[in-house]
């Protein structure tokens, strides 16, 4: 690991906003050499303990595979990971989508967006996205659909959609300001909104409990949630990349 102690001790240069650099507070420096060696030895000991803990584990441990395989018929999908993600552990997924939104709220409350296409994009970045972006949207739709019976699903598709938006931003394509107003905000809250509404709505059915999809309509509920979550995740990831409120 290369050190750069000179950079840490150089006084910070003045910024465009007219903020004077804080030269009265002590700037932190990298850890000195002896402390590094001692800390490295401590970490090696920690690694040895952890490795020992793994090596004494039993070689075959099915975990919860059998429990999932027994009830997968009522989950509405046929892939075990998707069933766990959106049915058996749906609460975790609901909180995760909420955490995404929370991270975006934090990012938006800290600064305004500065745009991502700084200099003029080169020829590759100008023309390749025109081919790639529609193709990526198509692949995202496929990933969403295939998640029912193979690896795939809302998160993978949402990440791809976020990449589409980031590619568009990097190549200089700007969304019109109208789209960045309420449609963007609607897309951002759609994931949490639909998931929470369905989770609570199922409790109102006779004999239902929150987040417990009835086996008859579980497949449709999951498809609806995945669609909303895909749009929401893509919007959140792209907005996080841009880094500030529009």
């Amino acid at each position, binding site marked *: 690991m290369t050190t750069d102690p000179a950079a840490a001790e150089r006084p910070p240069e003045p910024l465009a906003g007219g903020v004077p650099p804080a030269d009265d507070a002590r700037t932190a420096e990298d850890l000195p050499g002896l402390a590094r060696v001692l800390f490295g030895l401590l970490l090696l000991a920690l690694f040895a303990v952890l490795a020992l803990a793994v090596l004494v584990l039993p070689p075959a441990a099915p975990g919860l595979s059998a429990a999932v395989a027994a009830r997968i018929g009522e989950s509405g999908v046929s892939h075990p990971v998707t069933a766990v993600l959106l049915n058996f552990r749906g609460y975790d997924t609901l909180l995760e989508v909420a955490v995404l939104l929370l991270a975006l709220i934090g990012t938006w409350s800290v600064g305004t967006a500065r745009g991502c296409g700084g200099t003029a994009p080169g020829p590759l970045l100008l023309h390749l996205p025109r081919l790639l972006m529609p193709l990526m949207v198509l692949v995202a739709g496929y990933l969403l659909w295939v998640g029912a019976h193979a690896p795939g699903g809302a998160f993978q598709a949402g*990440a791809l959609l976020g990449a589409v938006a980031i590619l568009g931003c990097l190549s200089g394509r700007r969304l019109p300001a109208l789209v960045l107003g309420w449609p963007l905000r609607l897309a951002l809250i759609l994931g949490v909104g639909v998931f929470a509404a369905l989770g609570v709505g199922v409790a109102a059915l006779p004999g239902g409990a929150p987040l417990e999809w009835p086996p008859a309509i579980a497949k449709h509920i999951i498809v609806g949630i995945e669609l909303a979550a895909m749009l929401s995740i893509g919007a959140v990831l792209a907005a996080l990349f841009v880094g500030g409120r529009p």
Partner: protein
Amino acid sequence: MSQPVFWALVGMALVTLGLYALIVHAHLLRKVLALNIISSGVFLVFIGLARRAPEAGAALPMEPDPVPQAMVLTGIVVAVAATGLALALIVRLRAVTGRTTLGDDTDD
């Protein structure tokens, strides 16, 4: 050494490397990168150990445990979101104080 154990050890090596970089370096961007390495290591440990389900040919072949896989899917997305928030905070810290390290600004 079987495959699950190998991947779990690699994951722990990543966690150890990330911990070293997290503590040793003062620059906040390096700390955020180190946290990302740590999270990658943790996910690798989860996934590696999930493969311990008995494979085909054993008495009762089963799929790899899907619950750790779902947890890692969740974890990856949350880690990306947290990294985005951390980077926004670093940019803001630099704009406000002119530093990219967390100094000891005690009054002495």
